[in-house]
């Protein structure tokens, strides 16, 4: 129950920051950070894959309601939820240790978390920008936006994670 509350609170907080603050940041009309995929990233390992997908759908849909872009964020976030287990495997390079409960810095280490989060962010942003323009002519434009926005999103995510879930002292 405690876990459930924690994740719900994180969900509300991330959506709030995204809608109220980050959606108003657009430097030069290109750079636009998205941090709400962090909600999907931080869900526990034990969560069944189908539930991940549903939560991804819900998260994206909530964002879409606020941004009046029906389906756009939903599609991108469902994709993130779908590839998450594969990225976890890829980032670990080995089967997860028994003790691993949640994909946080404290449990998995900061290097693991960095490669894990940047992969998901790139997948998310790429899907988002490609679907939004949906035009092969604007491919270079989408890549450009990805290259500008993804590092900013990743930096914000790392800041949040370090602030709220600092790595354990060794």
């Amino acid at each position, binding site marked *: 129950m405690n876990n459930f509350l924690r994740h719900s609170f994180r969900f509300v907080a991330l959506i709030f920051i995204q*809608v*109220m603050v980050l*959606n*108003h940041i*657009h430097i*030069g*009309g*290109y*750079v*636009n950070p998205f941090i709400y995929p962090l909600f999907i990233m931080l869900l526990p390992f034990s969560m069944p*894959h*189908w539930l991940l*997908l*549903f939560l*991804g*759908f819900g998260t*994206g849909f909530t964002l*879409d*309601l*606020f*941004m*009046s*872009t*029906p*389906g*756009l964020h*939903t*599609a991108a976030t*469902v*994709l993130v939820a*779908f590839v998450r287990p594969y990225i976890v495997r890829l980032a670990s390079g080995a089967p997860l240790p028994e003790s691993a409960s949640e994909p946080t810095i404290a449990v998995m280490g900061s290097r693991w978390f960095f490669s894990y989060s940047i992969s998901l962010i790139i997948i998310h942003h790429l899907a988002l920008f490609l*679907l*939004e*323009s*949906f*035009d092969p002519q*604007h491919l270079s*434009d989408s890549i450009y936006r990805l290259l500008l926005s993804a590092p900013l999103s990743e930096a914000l995510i790392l800041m949040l994670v370090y602030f709220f879930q600092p790595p354990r002292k060794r």
Partner: protein
Amino acid sequence: MINLIRFIQKHHVLLLFLLLEIIALNMLFRSNAYHRSAAFTMNSAVSGVFYRMHKSVTDYFYLQQTNEQLAQENAYLRQQLQHNPVLSEKDSLILNDTIFHYIPARVVSNNVQFRNNYIVLNKGYEAGIEKDMGIISPEGVAGIITGVSKNYAIGMSLLHKFAAISVRFKRNGNLANLSWQGGDYRFGIIDHIPTHLVVNKGDTLITSGNSHLFPEGILVGTVEDYIASDDGALNQARIRFTTDFNRLRQVYVIDNKHRSELDSLLMIRVDE
């Protein structure tokens, strides 16, 4: 049958993923058809309340800018009054005044960073706003209303894949179509300019009045660059919008009182 169940059991995650993606993409492509779905118009009422909270805070940061803009507009209007003491003698002006009504509204949400950008306004059908009305800012054309709820309206700004408007070169009256290709929100583009047409940097573009959305003569932009095509057939021009979409706050929605009449007239002509 058993094989089918086994297949579903084995691939349930993949199937669920595909199903959810299909739902999402379906929503996405439906909404891109020129008019937004009714469901999302309703949602603009929900998120509108949320955005109003945000606006009530951030409005203070822009008070000075807004004041200046309104003062400038006032000055401009006063000047017009002075220069046109004989309004009644000019039929067109009277006509303009009775046909087009301006409904002032405030922008509660607006973006410029996407390929398709939308403006949400704080007035809806209670204030007389309907679908397909034009939106102008004090500086020039801003967009077109695509959906209304009771107290809010949503419109696509000129920064949208489907927002092409008919414009006219003020200098020589030639018609052109202005659209936005994405990227920098300050610049739009005019395609297919015939070679014989001389376009200079700084030429002013105004609305043509052909679309019934906007009255004739509203500022749209100025020519920034003239791009001659390689094969010498049809050239392009880069247009700087007079409206600064990143600072859009106070706008007017244009109600064309004769629109239904004009529309039905066009229908008759099509039926012929």
